[in-house]
């Protein structure tokens, strides 16, 4: 039964995709040239103006361009033009670094805050105010104070991805069932041991969920940050191609950003399943 459901879902997915591509293709077909112009003038104009080619590329254009990119993902034509593989590598490295720093700060800090109801209440307003701030708002401040654009980008990822982890850790630690802690207490388990053998495993699923939300945010942030500071990364690639008004390349970048984001999310989802326990 389940296998037939999966098969049918897969079929529907394929039909939806085909329908989407079909509509896209039809919507972006060239219309014939609307005005007549002298050949001398036409030579100086783009295809959009001369042949009525849609400004939006069709799926075939995107497919051809994507193939071109996939064939040589690691080319390096100087500091401002590198292959998509290299750009994605830069982005993933930046996200990894900023995210790792956030994990290193958020989890121990969240643990401490979660174990103390007083701190947890006192810090809550600050966290609530800092949480919804957009990466683009942090960027000028970071550039101005840190005075280094690549560190600024990492800082912005750090500051944006820290809050969901911190909040979830606090929540997870604070809501460990009282019975379990009381049992540990009756058995005279020390504070440190209690934290690692009782609270940590109990709070782990919530913490991991926070980490999963955070990696999604970090990946969202990197594109915005790189568009702003430029240089390298997939965000810079989007900006550079936007500069050239090459919507084809922008669509390819969107596709890749989506795929990488999904992969990162799946990795964290797997970790979450590993620590989940039945009650």
């Amino acid at each position: 039964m389940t296998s037939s459901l999966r098969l049918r879902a897969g079929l529907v997915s394929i039909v939806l995709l085909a329908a989407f591509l079909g509509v896209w293709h039809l919507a972006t077909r060239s219309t014939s040239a609307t005005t007549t112009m002298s050949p001398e003038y036409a030579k100086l104009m783009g295809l959009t103006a001369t042949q009525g080619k849609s400004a939006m590329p069709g799926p075939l254009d995107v497919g051809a361009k994507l193939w071109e990119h996939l064939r040589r993902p690691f080319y390096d034509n100087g500091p401002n033009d590198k292959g998509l593989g290299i750009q994605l590598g830069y982005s993933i490295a930046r996200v990894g670094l900023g995210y790792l720093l956030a994990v290193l700060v958020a989890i121990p800090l969240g643990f401490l805050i979660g174990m103390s109801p007083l701190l947890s209440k006192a810090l809550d307003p600050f966290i609530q105010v800092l949480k919804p701030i957009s990466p683009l708002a942090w960027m000028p401040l970071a550039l101005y104070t840190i005075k280094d654009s690549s560190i600024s980008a990492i800082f912005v990822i750090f500051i944006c991805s820290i809050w969901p982890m911190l909040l979830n850790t606090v929540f997870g630690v604070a809501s460990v069932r009282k019975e379990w802690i009381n049992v540990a207490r009756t058995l005279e388990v020390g504070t440190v041991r209690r934290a690692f053998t009782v609270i940590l495993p109990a709070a782990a699923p919530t913490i991991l969920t926070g980490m999963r939300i955070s990696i999604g945010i970090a990946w969202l942030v990197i594109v915005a940050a790189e568009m702003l500071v430029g240089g390298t990364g997939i965000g810079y690639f989007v900006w550079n191609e936007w500069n050239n008004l090459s919507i084809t390349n922008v669509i390819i970048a969107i596709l890749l950003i989506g795929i990488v984001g999904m992969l990162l999310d799946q990795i964290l989802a797997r970790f979450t399943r590993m620590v989940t326990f039945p009650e």
Partner: protein
Amino acid sequence: MSTFDDPFDAGRNLGAGCVCGQHRSAREHEQATALRCDPVESEEKRYEGVVASAVMRAMFPQDAARRAFLKSVGASTALAALSQFFPLKTATEVFAQTGTPEKKDLKVGFIPITCATPIIMAAPLGFYAKHGLNVEVVKTAGWAVIRDKTINKEYDAAHMLAPMPIAISLGLGANAIPFAVPAIENINGQGIVLASKHKDKRDPKDWKGMKFAIPFDYSMHNYLLRYYLAEHGLDPDTDVQLRSVPPPEMVANLRADNIDGFLAPDNICQRAIYDGVGFMHLLSKEIWDGHPCCSFAASREFITTAPNSFAALTRAIVDATAYASKAENRKQIAEAIAPANYINAPVTVLEQVLTGTYADGLGGVKTDAKRVDFDPFPWQSFAVWMLTQMKRWGQIKGDVDYKAVAEQVYLATDTKKLMTEMGLSPPASSYKSFAVMGKTFDPAKPEDYVASFKIRKAS
């Protein structure tokens, strides 16, 4: 007289118009006859030429006197006579070798527009390497970012809008950090583009309520557009809306009908036409022929800590600018700067900008060889003019020491020295008068100039 003219040419016309009388200026005549096409010239020969030119100019500072002398003896005799009592060979050698740069690996930021042509092309065409530098030119997302990265010393020098170094030095919109401009990048090369639907609204008086985009508040684009609108009786602060929009977004916004037009740097103007969303209303040169647009800027700190690197960098830029100022090189330059690593734009678009034969978006092909031009000399009167406009539109308040600021930021004296070393002939004075839309600007009387405008922000 332009920096790159040949002082050994007795026939060069000194006034307006050309020798044969068929062209509007001597330069157009030269382009038409293409007599001075000298593609493969050895390095040494070229240096010798520039050194000789400098000596010649030094001896006969008056154009008319030099012409009389050349006419009577002939150019080759004059050159031979010169070398009799002036060691041209030694001078050439001295010119070719300079102090070793303190720092060889430099980073220079640029914004992908054709204004940055000399900065960009100096990399693929080897001008930096020629002057002993290993320069990485880094594309940057916007003017604010390029400012911050240069202030942060991530970039040793950068491409900036001509008023930006003045604004940074004065602390407008940033902390006051002394910056300096050793060279102007380009003159002219901007344009007012309107959306295709405004084809019939060619009179600025009909533009009330329209939305226009400019690249940055401290830009020549802002001042030129405001000037143009004000001359036509529109108050740019109340009658229209001016928005700061990064150049690449301008075409997209014009297509989406968010703005009615823009005064933008080129390749963006031509790109809007190329994509069929707008037409060229006016080239910026029709507002002020020979206006500066972008500059090559560095912080005072870099100049004092690495003077030789700075000198070599400036030399490379001036050298590239000289190369770019020649019409016959423009096609090659367009191809060199078009790839994704540099400007990232179709070659056709860049060629139209640089060669000046362009589609106007209304179905016609126009030719204006001076659509964009390159002249490195940082006239201090340019800086004074920008300051008058900053004052006019309320960007600076209170009293301004126009001359002091201009002289501190626009390094005409240093550039003069460097250009003399390179054998180019810098102008004798650092101030020149010019006319903007027919109104003459006297750099000696900036306050009167500001006061003379009816439309300005009340201070």
